[in-house]
């Protein structure tokens, strides 16, 4: 088990004079569903992007088992990015390409230069892509242009792309922040099934507390780049929450403000 544990030790990232992530130390056990919460600008996004080296750390070390992620270069780094797939708030699909090709992008780390440039994928890879789409209920849209899909559909395509990477870890950067509640639930359920059925470690940035409570085994809270809470949902008391979000001027922190739940039951069918 320990060879698949993600160790983050003393990682700091500065942008100019601003410290986005400040000396963060965390161990993520394999198969955990970890939610990272905190107000915007707390460093959640930077932390996730440090993990797949989309952002380079100013100092500190990240290891995955015995592999030193922070020392990887070129091909090994690309291989690492394949292993820890990422989905984004804005989906980051190629809108002008069809859904199937977008999913197949998840395979390019394994491709050589020529086959990648001419967009040539094997039948096995296509089958893999269709299976992933099928799992997310998106097969019927396989030949549609990605830009014509709704936000929720695009995010599911993005998850399918992540799945064909055959990753060990799934990083999700505010995956439901641009979605309506119905689609948000479907996306979070998809992440949960990936976590439970495939045993993937899931790290998800959330700004909605109730989603974090509902889905996450473990909740990590950040404030001004530091970890200020690390525990299970039950330990998130009102005082702790107020501390995380700074309680700026309001005594009564209204959790419902950040809620993605539907206020009216009949809308749940939407």
């Amino acid at each position, binding site marked *: 088990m320990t060879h698949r544990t993600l160790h983050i030790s003393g990682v700091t990232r500065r942008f100019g004079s601003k410290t986005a992530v400040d000396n963060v130390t965390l161990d993520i056990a394999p198969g955990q569903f970890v939610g990272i919460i905190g107000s915007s600008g707390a460093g959640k996004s930077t932390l996730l992007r440090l993990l*797949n080296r*989309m952002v380079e750390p100013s100092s500190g070390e990240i290891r995955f088992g015995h592999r030193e992620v922070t020392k990887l270069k070129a091909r090994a780094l*690309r*291989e*690492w*990015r*394949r292993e820890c*797939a*990422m989905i*984004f708030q*804005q*989906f*980051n*699909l*190629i*809108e*002008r*390409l069809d859904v199937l*090709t977008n999913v197949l*992008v*998840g395979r*390019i*780390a394994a*491709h050589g*230069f020529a086959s*990648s*440039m001419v*967009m040539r994928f094997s039948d096995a890879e296509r089958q893999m892509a269709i299976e992933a789409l099928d799992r997310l209920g998106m097969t019927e849209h396989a030949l549609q*242009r990605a830009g014509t899909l709704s936000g929720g559909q695009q995010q599911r395509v*993005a998850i399918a*792309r*992540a799945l064909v*990477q055959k990753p060990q870890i799934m990083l999700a950067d505010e995956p439901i922040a641009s979605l309506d509640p119905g689609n948000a639930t479907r996306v979070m359920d998809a992440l949960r099934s990936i976590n439970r059925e495939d045993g993937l470690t899931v790290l998800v940035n959330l700004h909605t507390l109730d989603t974090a409570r509902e889905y996450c085994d473990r909740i990590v809270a950040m404030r001004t780049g530091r970890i200020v809470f690390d525990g299970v949902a039950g330990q998130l008391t009102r005082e702790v929450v107020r501390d995380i979000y700074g309680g700026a001027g309001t005594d009564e922190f209204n959790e419902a403000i950040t809620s993605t739940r539907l206020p009216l039951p009949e809308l749940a069918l939407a």
Partner: protein
Amino acid sequence: MRQRTTLAALALFAALFVASSLMSDFFKVTQVTLPDGSRAWRWLISAGMPRLGEYIEMTLPTLRWQSFLSDLAEWFWRWDIWLRLLVETILIAFMATTLGVIGGFLLSFPASRNLAPNRWVLWISRRYLEIARTVPELVWALIFVFCFGVGPMAGVLAIGLHACGALGKLYSEVNENIDMRPLDGVKAAGGSWFDQIRYGAVPQVLPNIISYTLLRFEGNVRSSSIIGYVGAGGLGQEFRTAMSLQDYTDLSALFLILFVTVAVIDWGSEKVRHRFIEKENHR
């Protein structure tokens, strides 16, 4: 404040106007011979204007009703050679556009601020494109005629190189306006720099690139029609021969051939471009 800037701009414009008109002899007064044989002083422009008419008149062929066909045949007496050279002219433009598009397309990515892998690559590719497009086609042609001898090869290389510089610049400006998020997605999936360009950038810029390319082809036909003047193939060499042998009616015939060709190509490529844009908008 704004008024002062306007005034300064006007003053600068006036100064430049005066300086350039003095340098180009715009206000020069010259002596001319009047019809009655006496000499008089006249402004250069008004003195020279009638000669424009004279020149055009000289190039006009004699066409009579009763012998129209034979007059026409005399006007276009070198039609077989001109036709072959016209085909050569178009082929030079086609080949040069192809070379220019390939070079410009490949270099436009390292020459884009948002896409260049590092600033050295950015610097080198930008300078290369600048040099390629700053040197005029005729100058490149002179150099290549010296290197590769008289013929269409020199023209293809000259126009192609210039087109590469001009298109690379245009394409890179298109590249600099793309949405970077798809590239981020490709990178996070383990894609290399080339993968990010191929999957993230190229699909976004392709419609613009096709449009610019067709526009460039029109321009290259115009360029290749004159490039023969310095020996780099195509119809241009006929202009030179006609002028030095004072076969003035040949000039009007050649002009007519070029005018029709360029008009037809402009019209055709505009049709293609519009159809393409329309198709893109409906996708």
